[in-house]
Each structure stands twice: as C-alpha cells, then as structure tokens.
C-alpha cells in the first residue's frame, strides 16, 4: 500500500476514534520522533515527556491536519516546538549564557568514528541554546531567519550560537579522541 494511502487511512481511523489505530499511529512514528526529541533534550526521560505531549497534541488536532501535507513533517514540527517549549520552561536562563570559547579549528570531522549514541551525546553536551540552534540548523535544515522567528531571537544571535555550537562540538570531539587514544596507549 502506498504510504500516502496508509497515512490517509490511519488518520481516518484515528479520527473515527479507533483505539487500535491510535496505537498503530504511535508505533509507526514514535521511534523517529523520540530520536528527534532526544537530540533537543538532555535525557531520554525528558525526551519521552516531550514525545508524550507531542502525541497528545497530534491526536487532538489530527482532524484539522491538512492531508495534502506531509504527516511526518507535521509531527516533526510538533515535536520540535514541544521540545523548545519544554526547554524554555526548564532552563530559560541557561539558553544563551555561553562562555567565550577559545578558537577551535573546525576542519574535517571524524564523525564516521562514532556511532549514533555517541554523536547525540556530543550534541546533548552543548548548552541548551547552542543545542537547539545546532539541531534546527544542521539537522532539521532550518534557516537562521526561521530559527530566529521560532526562538524569538535575532538572526545574528542564531548565527553566533550556531558558530559556538560548532566550536564546542569540535572541542568535545577532539577531547573525546584524545581520551580514546590515551586509553589505547
């Protein structure tokens, strides 16, 4: 069955109140959405809280979803917004207080040396503000203007936060490589 038809039927069943369809909907999208939420939050528990809120919002508003649009994109938008709201409520003061970093050369990143869990853990080590901007810009593909609108900051702030995120990640990765080499020696 084509995915669009599958999505359409699944949405219809959910709108009809079919409990099994709710579960099917959840099973189909939860893994991917949890991975997105996990990149924005610091722990899996926080990410699951975000995911729970995301699905409740989605089920509540599924009838109003424009079926010509992509359901995955719609759900991704919900989970990102929910995560950002959670971060605002949690640590508003932490968002943009980042100490000046020493200049780090950002060259070729040895990302292939790390698995998914490692890479996400690197992202999660970033300060919250940098983490959000990095996820939105590098992974989700938002522009700085879109990020500025989404986070109610200026484009300049978004760019500087992203630059700092890159430098921090470089530093984290370098230190991780150093630690690994020391273990080997």
């Amino acid at each position, binding site marked *: 069955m084509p995915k669009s038809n599958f999505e359409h039927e699944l949405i219809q069943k959910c709108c009809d109140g079919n409990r099994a369809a709710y579960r099917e909907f959840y099973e189909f999208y939860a893994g991917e959405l949890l991975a997105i939420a996990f*990149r924005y939050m610091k722990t*899996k528990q926080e990410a699951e809280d975000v*995911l729970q809120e995301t699905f409740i919002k989605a089920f509540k508003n599924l009838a109003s*979803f424009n079926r010509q649009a992509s359901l995955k994109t719609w759900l991704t938008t919900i989970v990102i917004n929910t995560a950002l709201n959670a971060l605002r409520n949690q640590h508003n003061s932490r968002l943009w207080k980042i100490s000046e970093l020493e200049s780090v050369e950002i060259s070729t990143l040895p990302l292939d040396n790390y698995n998914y869990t490692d890479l996400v853990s690197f992202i999660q080590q970033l300060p919250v503000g940098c983490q959000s901007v990095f996820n939105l810009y590098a992974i989700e593909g938002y522009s700085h203007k879109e990020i500025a609108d989404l986070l109610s900051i200026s484009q300049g702030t978004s760019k500087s936060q992203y630059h700092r995120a890159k430098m921090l990640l470089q530093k984290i990765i370098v230190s991780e490589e150093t630690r690994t080499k020391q273990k080997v020696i």
Partner: protein
Amino acid sequence: MKGLYEQHWKRAVGGARIEPSEALWNNIASNLDKERGSNYWVTLLMIAATITIAFSFPLTIGNSAFEVLPDTNQFVAQLEANTNSNQPANLGSTDSPANKQLSGSGSENKVLNTAKGNEESINEIPPHTSSSVDKNVNSFNLIKNAKAQNTGFESFSWNINYQLADLSNYYIIPYYMPEKIDEGRNLLASLNMGTGNASISGGLFSNTLLESDYGMSLSNSKDGFSNAVEQSESTGTAFYMGTGIELPMGNKWAVLTGIGYLVQKAEGVNNVVRNGKNGYRPLSIYAPVKTGSIFLSESYQYTLINNYISVPISVKYPIINRKMKFRAGAGISTDFMLRHTINAETFNKASYKPAEVDYKPIVLSGLVNFDIRYSLNKHYSVALETGFRRGITPIDKNKDLYPSSFTGGIVLLYKIR
C-alpha cells in the same frame, strides 16, 4: 542546501529511531481517555440540546393564534349599507324580531342571508344547531350539532385570486431536507418527519366569505350577534423522503445535493357554508360565494396537502469531528410544486395543479441545520438531524407568504469512496 559540515551531521544523526518505553504509550492512552471522556459529555449535551430544539420550537414559535379575524365594525357598517340598499326590511333594523332572536341566547339559531333580491332576509338553520358567544375575546363559536346537508353541491369556477391573495397568515409546517456528510463521497438516504403548527386556511376562509359579498375582511357582530367564522387548526405534519450525494470540499467542508419528495399537510376546522339549491352546504375553499349566500353552520374538518419535489443544496462544517460528529450547515432548497389537494369530510376531494391555484410552482427556501452522525462501520453511518427552514421567495403569487419550519430527521449514509 547546507554545507558539507551540516550534511555530515544530518546523515549521521538524522532519520534515527529510538524505541520508547512501554510506559509511554500507557501514559498517552490514559490522557486520551481523559480527553475522550470530556468530549463525550460535550457530545451528550449537544444531543440533548438538539433534541430539545427539534421538539420545542414547533410548540413555541408556531403561528398557532389566528390573526385574521377582521375589523367587525367595518363589516357591520358595510353589511348594513349593503342590506339597506337591497332589502331594508329586517336585516338593517336592530329592532327586528329576527335580530333580537339572533343576539339573544341562541335558543333559536339563525343565520344571515343577504341574497341579492331574495324575498327573505333571514333563514333558519336546523333547530338542532346551537350557538354561543364569547364577548370577552370578541369571537363567536358555533357549537354545531347539525350535519350540513350534502346534496347538490356545485363546483364553481370563480377566480380564486382574491381568496389566496389575502392568505395573510404565514404558516409553519415542519418540512426540511435532512442531509448528512462524511469524508469522501457519500450516498444519502434520508427520511424525515416533523410536527408543527399550521395556519393555512384562516385567511382563506374568512376572505372567501367577504371578498365575494362585501369586499371586506370578515363578517362579525351585529347587535351582539357574532356570525364570525369559526376556524381552528390542529398541528400540521410533514414528511420527506429523498436521496442525495455529498462531496468533500477540502478537509472539512462538504457540499450536499439531492432530490426528494416532500409532503406538507395541515388539518383544520371551519364552519363556513353556502346556501345551495338543495340546502346548506359547506363552502368549498375555492368556491365562489354568491352574494347573500353566506351562512354559518356546523363545523367540518378539512385537510390541505401540498406536494413538492425538493432539490436542496447545502454546505456543512464540522464543529466536532470525531467518531461521533457534530456539524452545522446552511444551504438553499428549490421546491417544485406537484399539486395542492383539499379534502373535507363533507365535500369531495379536490386536487389542483400549481397553475390552477395561486401558489407559485417553484419556490426557494433557506436551510440552516445541525446534525450528529455516528459511524457504524467503514461504509455506513447514521445521522440525527434538526434544522430550520424558511422561504426565501413567497409561496403565494400575490402575497408575501414565507413558510418556516423546525424539524428533525434521520439520515443513513453509505460511503462510496
């Protein structure tokens, strides 16, 4: 397109999946149950409100009171002038023994006969007919015991325009096209019935009396004697059966159209009779009244029936869009009159085509409706519907007569795509 750096990261961490804990779904399901519980209460309240509206409006808004009783003084003055000029004896004189009898207790029941050039001014109606007067409300009721004689009834070709032109009461008959929408294309089968008050014949009967004789609006009192027409109407009924189709417009809106057979029926009582060759007879609704042949006699029941082919088109929007849906809609209906039928127990049934009466052959009505639909399975749904319908164009050619109605119905739907 982002740079190589971003592409590396996206490729490395994008599109991943993390298995959530089982407890997460349990929490979500628990929250959904709470949400659903509150929505069920909202839905139940709306069902109750819908039923209340459907059944209470016909009782409270219906035009149950006759408002066509005319200015009797005007009639009496005209009657006197007319009578005096023709037959000054008896009728124009309040001292006449006959009138004294009429204004009295009614032990001897009389009726006025103003026949042009006739030799008698007062005719007695059968002695077993009695009368009573309620002066407080300035109305007169004849309590009829006698059966009107039923022979020699004549049909008349008198122009009925006057009669219909003064049908001043708009009436409420609940008739309304029930429709239903679901996502996708639905075939509809609708069945709708309702009740309401109807005032169809009040103006008709009273003006039949007077237009022919005096060009006025109604006969009434003279020296305490009220020879007013007694007329009352019971609750009207309507029946609709039809089929149709709905087509979605976007995700929420839907347009519906179809065709159906609509029957409006109103029953009433009247006591207008005429003096036929072979005795007193009920006055045919569309019959002419010869000058001087107005009589009040026993009441008789009549039934008016209008038949239409109805073609409604409307749009609907969901207010609640779940398994049980609550939707509001509005639209327009084009109704093609098939025939108008009059039936009374004391004279023959008469059926008229639209061209023979002054009803318009095509009328437009506005529709506002609400429905609650429940999906039985993938294809079948059932809906309860209530709504309001009011004429946009008058049903009468000469009079602003806009029928309106409240009613409820049931609709079965089959989803074809």
